[in-house]
């Protein structure tokens, strides 16, 4: 499934890059991705009793309702292709894939910033600049509050994770204390603290 949606996303990107419609289609697909969070919409799309034309129409209308303006003609045609081929199930994954590919093509990267409390815009910008320097891509961060972290922040950027949270440090300290040689704790005793037992 994953490689299938990647093929469609690749093809779509090639088309939009050639005709310069990438930003418009990307915006549409992002909105669609959000709209597809709704179970009713997904059930409607996967229902074989509904004719294809109706589905395409509904999707375009949903887009217009969400974005305030009409969908890009390329988006509409792409949706028709998907419906025609019976691949509309791929749509939620495809939206995310296309966004990733478009970002990569522009030399950008999007990451998530989890923090214990909301962070100042300047702090976020400073982090973005540091990460841009590190990865060579223009990094944008989305800030989410996660009370479980106890303090500090965690950044998820693609496959990489930077953990500067209090929770992470406490876990690291815990692992270290558990791994202490038993002899150092109590002259050869205290088996219960050793990791293997």
């Amino acid at each position, binding site marked *: 499934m994953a490689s299938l949606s990647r093929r469609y996303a690749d093809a779509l990107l090639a088309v939009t890059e050639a005709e310069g419609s990438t930003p418009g289609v990307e915006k549409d697909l992002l909105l669609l991705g959000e709209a597809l969070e709704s179970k009713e919409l997904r059930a409607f799309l996967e229902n074989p009793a509904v004719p294809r034309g109706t589905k395409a129409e509904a999707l375009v209308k949903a887009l217009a309702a969400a974005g305030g303006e009409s969908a890009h003609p390329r988006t509409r045609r792409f949706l028709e292709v998907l419906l025609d081929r019976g691949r509309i199930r791929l749509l939620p994954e495809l939206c995310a894939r296309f966004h990733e590919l478009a970002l990569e093509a522009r030399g950008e990267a999007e990451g998530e910033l989890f923090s214990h409390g909301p962070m100042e815009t300047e702090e976020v910008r400073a982090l973005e600049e540091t990460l841009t320097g590190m990865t060579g891509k223009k990094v944008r961060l989305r800030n989410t509050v996660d009370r479980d972290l106890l303090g500090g922040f965690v950044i998820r950027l693609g496959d990489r*994770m930077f953990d500067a949270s209090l929770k*992470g440090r406490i876990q690291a*300290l815990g692992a270290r204390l558990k791994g*202490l040689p*038993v002899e150092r704790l109590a002259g050869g005793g205290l088996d219960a603290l050793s990791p*293997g037992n």
Partner: protein
Amino acid sequence: MDLKPSEVTSVLRKEIEGFEGAAQDAKVGTVLQVGDGVARVFGLGDCMMSELLDFGNGVFGVALNLEEDNVGAVLLGDDTKVKEGQVVKSTGRIISVPTGEALIGRVVDALGRPRDGRGAIDLPESEYRPIEGVSPTVPERQPVKEPLQTGIVAIDSMIPIGRGQRELIIGDRQTGKTALIIDTIINQRGTGGGDPKNPEQVLCIYVAVGQKQSTVKAVEKVLTDHDAMSYTTIVSAPASDPASMQYLSCYAGASIGERFRDEGRHVVIFYDDLYKQALAYRQVMLLLRRPPGREAFPGDVFNLHSRLLERAAKLSDAKGGGSLTALPVVETQEGDVSAYIPTNVISITDGQIFLESNLFNAGIRPAVNVGISVSRVGGSAQVPAMKKVAGGLRLDLAQFRELAAFAQFGSDLDKATLAQINRGERLVELLKQGQYKPFPVEDQVMFVYAGTKGSLDKVPIQEVGRWRTEFLEFMHADKSNLVETLAREKKMTDEVREGLDRAIEEFNAQFQA
């Protein structure tokens, strides 16, 4: 155990004060799917084959399938602690085990973590070795030339094993496979007095795969009772362990052994047993959706065993001359040696020791079928004196087997045939041996010599065991010079032969049948 809370507190306090919690930068992925001890992970872009993955909560996994957009991993711990959507960290480390002297005398699991409740094995990263090792190349090896004495007459005389050889132990359940291993381990005590620091001491590694924990405990106890744990490591992956740990345990054991081998030591490793290991591997591979082949084993099950057994070697002198002898065990079902796994392992090893249940039930223990057991390379490593006397033994037994089959027809037998059968029956009796009672090679040479020479032909069959015991007692008490010469020179010189002839005559004269 004396625990002082104040000491513990102060150590912990120092550790906490000295702890620098730097931000961690790690490659991560997300668990897509988990169950039956395997997980599929999305992400982990630069993941390596056999890399150790941290699933959190103390659960680790090994990456085995690197696919286009996900990684298939086997879990080395409780899969109920792993949840879908959970973050997985790569460790940048290929799965490895601690090695070295700290492991001797211990019971550990497939990751080198203690299983004997005797405290942590705390070793720096430099003492770790990847569990999948590359076997020595051709120039790094030399032919097997030193004997590995099992202490079992039937084996040391007719199926001799050399250091660096791979000899399969094969037989049905309840035929004494593990007993043979235990006797061999106990007998290694004679090489260096049981002192692991003595370079002459042969070190033993016993890998228990998929066995009952009680069985492993029993083996450990027997070895401890016979002072054999001081040079032995047990790698235990009992039936209660995840299948991944069971199949990895053999490689972990091999890595522990290789460390000593590369330091110029002699090591013997026992895989008990490879059939269960193949079953565990089959389980993991089917769950990872690798295509099944014959008997539903994955296609690389031959390589699974060949790459493991290729790590046994006698190293060249330039490489230190160390050796790793492998004695794998394969359990057969109803004596079927033509099943998939037995034929594979038979073709990989340098010979096999067949144990048969009908021999076992007939009271011939160890139940070695010397007719079909072979050792392809061990002969060149055999002690010269033993080589000399064993030739006659093999011939006498072969003729006996042939004649015994005919004799069953009950027809009249001529004198020569009767004598041959008579001799054979006594030799079979002479090869019987009690459990945990290995014989030193010089003792074996003395009574095998007596047997093949016909000195026991007049001793009643049921008295052969007593004859052997009393003969050895007599030799050690009255002819200790001769025994020492034989033990030292290991050659059947004319002088030794004459001395033996005289001693046997003298003993037979006083033996009360």
